[in-house]
């Protein structure tokens, strides 16, 4: 929302049709201007299907935590499970260890050192379907701690069997260096589908 709209009172046109009683508050009711501690750092939106990697470099170190919000799909044509695995590298190095717990609509499994996050590919399923992921990288600039992340990711394909999954992820990066770059790359050979988006945010402490 642009600054002028904030100063004028955010979202003055929003409508509520089913609130029979109770209270309704909008930002303008709380104050004309909102300053949050969650800031947009950088975004990559894929306009041309040409690469299998997205990198955020020169990440500033003055935030406390990072969050990456991803909506993506792979062009990998393989039918099979119709998924591609997105790996995460910090400072050019893969995370030392990762775990995940995955529900596929029929059962739950757990894994270690698998591709970090699964996204749909072009091998099967719905063409316009992109998977989502939210990755939190905690205390990424602290020079006394090894680095960890947690993730929540998934996609659904409106099919009664695979593909489609919801996944809890964790990762460990055995270094106390500040993370100044993050790389996301599909590891099964697919490139990143047009309209995929990777958005990096910083959270102040």
């Amino acid at each position, binding site marked *: *929302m642009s600054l002028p709209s904030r100063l004028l009172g*955010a*979202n003055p*046109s*929003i409508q*509520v*049709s*089913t*609130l*029979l*009683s*109770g*209270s*309704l*508050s*909008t*930002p303008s009711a709380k104050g004309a201007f*909102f*300053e*949050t501690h*969650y*800031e*947009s*750092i*950088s*975004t990559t939106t894929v306009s041309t299907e040409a690469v299998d990697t997205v990198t955020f470099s020169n990440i500033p170190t003055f935030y406390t935590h990072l969050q990456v*919000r991803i*909506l993506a799909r792979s062009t990998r044509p393989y039918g099979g499970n119709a998924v591609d695995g997105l790996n995460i590298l910090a400072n050019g190095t893969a995370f030392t260890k990762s775990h995940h717990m*995955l*529900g*596929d*609509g029929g*059962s*739950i499994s757990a894994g270690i050192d698998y591709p970090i996050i699964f996204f749909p590919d072009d091998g099967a399923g*719905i063409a*316009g*379907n*992109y*998977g*989502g992921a*939210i990755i939190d990288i905690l205390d990424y600039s602290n020079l006394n701690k090894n680095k960890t992340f947690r993730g*929540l*990711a*998934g*996609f*659904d*394909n*409106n*099919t*009664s069997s695979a593909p*489609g*999954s*919801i996944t*809890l992820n964790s990762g460990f990066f055995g270094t106390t260096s500040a993370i100044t770059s993050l790389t996301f790359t599909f590891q099964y050979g697919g490139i990143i589908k047009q*309209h995929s*988006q990777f*958005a*990096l*945010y*910083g959270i102040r402490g």
Partner: protein
Amino acid sequence: MPSTYEPIQTQTLGSAASSITFSSIPDTYTDLVVVVQGTYSTSDAIISLRYNNDTGTNYSQTSMYGNGSSALSYRSIDASSIQVGWYPNPGGAAVVSNMVINVFNYSNSTTYKTSISRGDTTNVQGVAVRVGLWRNTAVINRIDLVMSAGNLQTGTTATIYGILKAA
């Protein structure tokens, strides 16, 4: 860096209601986050969401759920909404329920819409994560949170936030 993650609107129920609607959602953000903290007492009630008042069978979801003794995963296809909360309530007690729903790229008109949600019940049973799909490329300008039975109780709150990506 531009500040974002802004509250768009909060609703607090002054009396029981079977649904909560956010309409005329501005299309000026990238993602939406809906945070719900509510109470209901109906056994086996399901809380679901719909977009743009679409009641067709254009939704699906995959869920992973734990109830303290077992874990399961289930899926719904060709559904008329996306579950974001489902809590069996064998004891009949009021269920305190929390939900955080992330809707990705709601304002683009090129991709189907994906959501990821987490729902917990603090006093009865269950924690769940879910991914939902709406097979529609339309910009989302309305979100309905709908009970399958019974009502959300007085005091239930729902807040919608907008997150804007960097240019």
